[in-house]
């Protein structure tokens, strides 16, 4: 899959590998793939992740304070994993063409 699918599809696809990912890892990967360089776009991608977690597709499993300014200095970083529901919705959305 490439950058021509909606961003939430791509985020779910990245989590479909079954591994745990920190939000800043996903955000920077999407920023790079979609060419979204600005801080506003960075926060908007992070908000997509928050919405996916609110919707029960991702689960927030660990947090740490961003001391080094990887994402935003002093803010809380979150590590997520995909839920069963997220797997169903993600597979439905992502693997149709495969």
């Amino acid at each position, binding site marked *: 899959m490439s950058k021509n699918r909606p961003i939430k*599809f791509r985020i779910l696809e990245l989590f479909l590998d079954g591994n745990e990912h920190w939000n800043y890892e996903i955000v920077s990967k999407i920023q790079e793939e979609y060419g979204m360089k600005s801080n506003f776009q960075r926060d908007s991608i992070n908000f997509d992740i*928050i*919405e996916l977690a*609110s919707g*029960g597709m991702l*689960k927030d499993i660990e*947090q740490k*304070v961003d001391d080094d300014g990887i994402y935003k200095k002093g803010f809380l970083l979150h590590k997520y994993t995909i839920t069963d529901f997220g797997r169903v919705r993600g597979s439905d*959305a992502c693997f149709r063409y495969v």
Partner: protein
Amino acid sequence: MEGVFVDLKTLKKQESKRKISKGYMWAFFCAIFWGIWYLPGTVVWVLNPFDEMSSAIAKTSGDGISLVVTAVLITAFNALAVMLALMVWNGVLGKYGELVRTLKEFHPCSKWFFLASIFGGPMAILGSFIAMGFIGGSFAAVAGLLYPVVGSILAYYWYGEKISKRAAVGIAVIVLGGISIYGGGLFTELSSGNVPWIGYLGGLMAAAGWGIEGAIAGKGLDIAEPDAGLTLHFLGENIIWWIIIVPILALVGFPMYSFALQAFDPLTILILVFAGITFGFCYVTWYKSFPLIGVGRGQGIGNLYGLCAIIFLFLFFGDVPDWTIVIGGALCIAGSFVMFTEDASELETLRGE
């Protein structure tokens, strides 16, 4: 080590608090925009070409048909104005790319927004305009307050979304409010022997339409950006009105196009732009509040629009609603408060796994 732990806990609490208050703020803005929308929504009926249109059609087809056909043209222009407002909004946010990407995903995603547009447009918004035209702005605004009941029950049966005891109590109070809104007016009119049935049907269409729309749009919003999804909803609505319904009515013989062309009058355009901005942003803030505080709370706070509408209609037009509408509206709002004051500790994930 303990210091770090406490810090993390405090930070997490702060972050969650910030998120929830942001959600409430969005939902509150939704109530204000939605309430203000009833001003242009009510005014537009007496402006050219819509007032001439309804009297012209009434002469040949009767009052009832004339009001519905006029409501169709008004709703079509409302959808067009909202679409323009949303295109500006998406442009400012730089989301055209995401809009196109989402549009292309018909099967897994955008079909839900097109389906939602059928219920939100020809059912809810047309119903609301019909209720405004036949009975009045205050009634239309308050009748729509019943929509969270429809939405919650549908989500319960469709995708097993849990309804807590407290939410059920809230729903019961809102239903009582609905009985007062409909029953009170009907009782008076039954005794006078003149019941504007189509107006009441319009009120029910608004409540059912917005409730069904919320449940359907929720499916698409799982995997779509709210701003993009919302714009697709209005794209669907514009197709329904301008490509299907308006041409069909024109073919049947109603003078749709001649009146539509007359809408390009400065005052009418100004009011339509006002309607587009208020309605567009009430939808933007509605969709934005859901992921932060949940559909139940979002709709609960959003329901304050009924109160806002009555206040604005009173301030601008001196509209004093019937006492049964005031009591019904108060019950609906009390029920909404019962729903959204639920324990907020579960707000991290809004859907059960």
